[in-house]
């Protein structure tokens, strides 16, 4: 994967939507000709097995349920699991000469990279990848949505100035911190830190933070804990804060970003086809339709990656954000991260 292009494009995508952020609600956004509506897609028929790397709760489920209802002749079977585990399963199955999944939808591009590197992904047609914004077009997989690591903080307890702009410096601060070490995105963040700063520094950081950290089961819990003032700030993907604020506009929480380190890692969920034929490709096309992308942007607050779909309301200007340079495929290498986190006693 060409990481720089990917990152720059994601930034551009954010900026694209954000520069006119104030006006975008009033004006009709430009709709690129090549973004399809579900109405333009053929109905799907037959058996399709999807390996779904643990989705974002009910929202991905809603998308899949809508696809099912639109395509009554489609027999969609879903195997749910931790993204990295499913990626490993796919590779092990291929090694044993068994293939069960037709499509793999992962919340983490590292896992996608791992499967693609194993040579298991089928090439995608050019008119499909062409729907994605420039720089997001990969021959073997399609990014579905983007997400940024952020520091949600309690606005009643902190001002933006009190938050260090380096995630490493947080270890030396006196702030109380909420985190969800078991959550896949957090683990990708730790993997990124490992790659950027080395294992020893990362382990020290984990130990230092864990002294002032409160663990939550998921990152929505982290953001809610921050909002309730249980902790000063937390680690979470950007959309949890936006979702919380959409339901509670006066919530005591806002987003801060670190600079040029793992604290503002940019990642993407992605999808790839594992079996031949039109059905997996059509399924991927459904995920890239205007309807699904708008739904994920407006309801899940994820960053849409096809042309002509508005980014989520409330995403702060991304030109303020300088994500680190990390090879996203390496984020699939989870085991050293898990060992590190275990040895540091945080998992």
């Amino acid at each position, binding site marked *: 994967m060409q990481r720089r292009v990917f990152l720059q494009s994601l930034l551009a995508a954010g900026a694209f939507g954000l520069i006119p952020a104030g006006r975008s609600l009033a004006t009709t956004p430009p709709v690129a000709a090549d973004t399809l509506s579900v109405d333009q897609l053929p109905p799907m028929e037959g058996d399709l097995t999807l390996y779904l790397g643990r989705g974002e709760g009910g929202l991905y489920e809603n998308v899949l349920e809508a696809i099912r209802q639109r395509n009554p002749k489609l027999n969609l079977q879903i195997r749910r699991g931790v993204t990295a585990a499913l990626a490993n399963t796919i590779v092990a199955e291929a090694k044993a000469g068994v293939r069960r999944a037709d499509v793999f939808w992962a919340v983490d591009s590292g896992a996608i990279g791992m499967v693609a590197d194993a040579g298991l992904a089928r090439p995608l047609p050019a008119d499909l990848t062409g729907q994605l914004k420039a720089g997001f077009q990969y021959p073997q997989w399609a990014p579905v949505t983007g997400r940024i690591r952020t520091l949600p903080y309690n606005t009643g307890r902190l001002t933006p100035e009190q938050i260090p702009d380096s995630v490493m410096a947080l270890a030396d601060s006196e702030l109380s911190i909420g985190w969800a070490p078991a959550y896949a995105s957090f683990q990708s963040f730790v993997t990124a830190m490992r790659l950027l700063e080395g294992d020893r520094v990362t382990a020290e950081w984990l130990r230092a933070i864990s002294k002032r950290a409160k663990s939550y089961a998921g990152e929505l819990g982290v953001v809610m*804990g921050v909002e309730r003032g249980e902790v000063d700030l937390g680690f979470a993907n950007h959309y949890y804060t936006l979702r919380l604020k959409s339901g509670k506009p006066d919530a005591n929480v806002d987003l801060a970003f670190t600079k040029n380190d793992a604290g503002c890692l940019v990642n993407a969920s992605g999808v790839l086809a594992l079996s031949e034929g039109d059905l997996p490709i059509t399924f991927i096309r459904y995920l890239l339709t205007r309807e699904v992308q708008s739904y994920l942007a407006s309801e899940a607050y994820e960053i849409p990656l096809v042309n002509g779909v508005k980014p989520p309301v409330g995403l702060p200007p991304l030109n303020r954000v300088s994500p680190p340079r990390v090879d996203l495929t390496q984020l699939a290498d989870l085991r050293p991260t898990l060992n590190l986190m275990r040895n540091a006693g945080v998992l």
Partner: protein
Amino acid sequence: MINWPLPRWPGSYPLALITALVGLMPVGVLIGLASEEAQLFDAHNLKVLINTLLLMVFTVLGSVLIGVPLALLTAYVQMPWRKLWLVLLAAPLAIPSYIGAFTLYAAFGRGGEIENLLGLPVPPMDGLVGATVVMTLYSYPFVMLTTRASLLSLDASLVNAARTLGMTLSESIWRVVLPRVATGIAAGGLLVALYTLSDFGTPAIMRLDTFTRVIFVEYNAFGLSQAAMLSLQLMVIVGLVLFLESRVRGNHERPGRHLALWPNRWQKLIIAVAVAPVTILAIVLPLSVFGIWLLREGTGGFQFSHAWNSVHASFLAALVAVVLAIPVAHAAIAGRAGRLMERVTYFGFGVPGIVMGTALVYLGLQLPFLYQTLGLLVLAYVLRFLPLAVGSVRATAEGLDPSLVKAARLLGASPGEAFRRVTLPLTLRGMVAGAALVFLEAMRELPATLMLGPTGFETLATYLWRVYEAGYFGRAAIPGLLLVLMSALGLALMLSGERRAEFDVTENHHS
């Protein structure tokens, strides 16, 4: 008495032999898998071993500390509503320990349900301490029931003699009663050890790196070889515990009058206050947490198909297990070779679910027609829970008067006809009981179901696990309550069925 010439090779032997060989298969698979590329032992492995042993030892100690006094209480102390006390104190067996771990984890700590509800800051429940507390709360009844059965077999006149000779009551319990029930305590303690070693959910939720948790992590990273190596190490420990258990034999005394102690009102109150925390933590708290979640979040996300899938797979497992149990049980009665075959099938009961899952995932990858099929999952259930069915079937078959079969043969029935028309109807009760036990154990099974379930096949237990993993705790209420209900039925069956001798809840069994 006429001795009928027995066939040299009883009819049940071939089938029993095949079943026994299939039962050994997982170990063969694991050895083959582990020899591929696994590391034998490293530093992290040592930590896992220590954690596992510490959890086991602390849980056994905790269970003895809670279980023995409660056994004395339920056996000897004349409290009002004694039956109710006994049922209440045995009830933690009806709650799968992962449900206890899940709810206690959610209840304690900052932002936990207790703090949310009462505003009371409570320490978090996790790590070695949390896992020990949970495992103790849900396994002390093993010690309580085995010890109680031993206590009820004792003659009170020895205690009375000791008191007459000037010992105080507590001294005579310590020096006269307890030494004579040591084997009962040991038997319960070993059951607790076995239960703790094979439990997956509790260490996983409490985030304690024991063998079962690390095996699951390796499986998720598809380090199947390493998972197999860890599984074999765990099996060695399990084997040691099983060996010790087989050495523990009850000593039988001439039964006599039971000791009866009559507490006064204050003593009753003190006893009730002392016992309350155990019941509150083990029973009231999990059910309350589910209740709160149910009120707060309703029944969202739960589909009836989860319950149906559980029932479907468990029913198939029960059916297959009983069909296989019949030849094994009859072989066990028929001769020494048959008894050996029966012993071999017992082996599966000692294989933790996570280990069985690892072996069968690999088997499935080698035999793709089995991979991710319901058949493979049912096979895992059958291999694990076959001993429950064999035990039940054998117990009724042994009680069968052999002269009935001989009479049938004398009247001209072939062996097959005698079996069909005499043995089978008379042992039907045992088969039904065995099937029910397998059914209910399969319903609660978590790790093997997670690993082996077909795509899209969500059961109550796996749904509960997904909900835990995704952090949507509120959705656990319905599947959790259903699982508790199912397990309660299983417990009721166990207490009235095959293991009655061990887990005696009646008063006069021995007299």
